[in-house]
């Protein structure tokens, strides 16, 4: 068993492994955001060491937020994702990004703190379209499922991703060093006629040193998305249902090439 440390995010309580080695979230266990109960880490920052800083900071934050009525952060997640260095799988796939996915925005208001609006849709499309194009011998965007007959002949399957959960934590105190982001995607692989072949949840966790709130959130989100991309590009073919389907496809193509030779 792992030793656990208790973390809390608003109403729900989660347990994190305090292990120094590979963590549970690396093994696919969803990792929640956290607000630390009590003091998890010692003081950080010069001014924080004095009462002066706390008094001034409290007064400034309270007066500003009271005046403006709410502090808000609006962010469009922005990154250039690298092309994965993986061998393309010998299948032709279509990828279907619905509107919810390609315009995904996370809105959250944290009571007595701030409200956040985080636009992830563009980054979703950028990450996964590049990823799928590199992962398969052929990949192209599609707009409907089941596919039209012309597309059915051209493609072997369709992948439809969904961003199911997005959570983040921005430290309240300067003693918390990291902004953290946790995301869970659901990847569904369909036959071209719309029949589900496989379903696979993929999680990503990222953290970034706390500095500028928006920039740190962006960095943490990008790290989490890169993790998602890493998981998909290296583990997709190892999913049991996908592995079975790939074998079937290989057998089919072997049979059809044999038949071609015999004719």
């Amino acid at each position, binding site marked *: 068993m792992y030793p656990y440390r208790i973390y809390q995010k608003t109403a729900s309580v989660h347990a*994190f*492994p*305090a*292990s*120094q*080695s*590979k*963590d549970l*979230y*690396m093994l696919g266990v969803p990792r929640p955001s956290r607000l630390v109960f009590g003091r998890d*880490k*010692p*003081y*950080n920052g*010069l001014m924080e*060491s*004095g*009462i*002066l800083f706390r*008094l001034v900071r409290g007064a400034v934050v309270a007066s500003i937020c009271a005046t403006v009525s709410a502090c808000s952060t609006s962010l469009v997640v922005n990154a250039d*994702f*690298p*092309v*994965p*260095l*993986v*061998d393309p799988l010998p299948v032709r796939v279509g990828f279907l990004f619905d509107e919810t996915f390609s315009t995904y925005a996370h809105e959250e208001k944290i009571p007595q703190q701030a409200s956040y609006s985080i636009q992830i849709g563009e980054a979703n499309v950028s990450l996964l379209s590049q990823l799928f194009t590199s992962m398969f011998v052929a990949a192209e965007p599609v707009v409907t499922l089941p596919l039209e007959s012309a597309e059915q002949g051209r493609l072997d399957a369709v992948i439809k991703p969904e961003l199911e959960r997005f959570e983040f934590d921005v430290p309240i105190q300067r003693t918390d060093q*990291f902004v953290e982001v946790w995301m869970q995607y659901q990847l569904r692989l369909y036959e071209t006629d719309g029949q589900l072949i496989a379903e696979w949840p993929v999680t990503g966790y990222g*953290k970034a*040193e706390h500095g500028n709130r928006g920039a740190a959130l962006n960095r943490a989100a990008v*790290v989490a998305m*890169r*993790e998602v*991309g*890493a*998981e998909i*590009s*290296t583990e997709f073919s190892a999913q049991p249902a996908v592995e079975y389907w790939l074998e079937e496809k290989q057998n089919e193509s072997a049979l059809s090439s044999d038949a071609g030779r015999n004719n």
Partner: protein
Amino acid sequence: MNRHCLQTLAAITSTRAQALAAALAVSILAGCSVTSRMEPYKRTEAVISEGEQVVVLARKHHATHETEAAFVECVAGALASGSNGLEVHDTVAFEDQLYPWFEPSRAPLSTDELSELLEKPDVFERVQGSGVRFLVWLDGSTDRVASGGGITCAAGVGGAGCMGLAWWEDDARYDATVWDIQELSSTGTIYADFRGRSTLPAIVIPIPLIARPRAAACRGMTEQLRNFLTSPTSYIPGPDLQ
């Protein structure tokens, strides 16, 4: 007593009517210092040759801490600078070129895993193409390990001021593990522990006397790494920080 503390003391004593502040500063300067401990261990005689590069990477898979990006940049920048600067490959560019194999959840944790990784199609060619021979894995962080004291401030019609003394102690603890891609082996490890105590006396105005153990750790680690990568066995003494 480090240079920054001395400069601060000079600034304090240069103004008039602050004899009390100077006296207090003298009494607390003993606390504004950095103590260091470095333990280099090299197990091979491999050295970097002309045309070969080194890349500095951070271990990011821990839940509890992560090596600061600023520390990685500091070490990489310092290794590359100076008349005897090494050829240092850009960290982000290396991670991007080899994406996804050096992401936190995929990065090799041992040289055995590195050898398995280099057997993958295209990965070895990409690493060779980058010109990188040595990977330096930085692990550790700078943490506040103790703090105390307090400062009280008050304001009135006639003015405002603070009185008191606060102090804190930071511990910069890092290790650098050097892997030789050519030999597929670990060349050795450098362990650095720099502890600095800072004080903030306030007599009317707060006067920060800051110790910077992370910066000192960066300098110390860089000197040792440079020697590690260029000299088969010998080491220079650690930095004089007292």
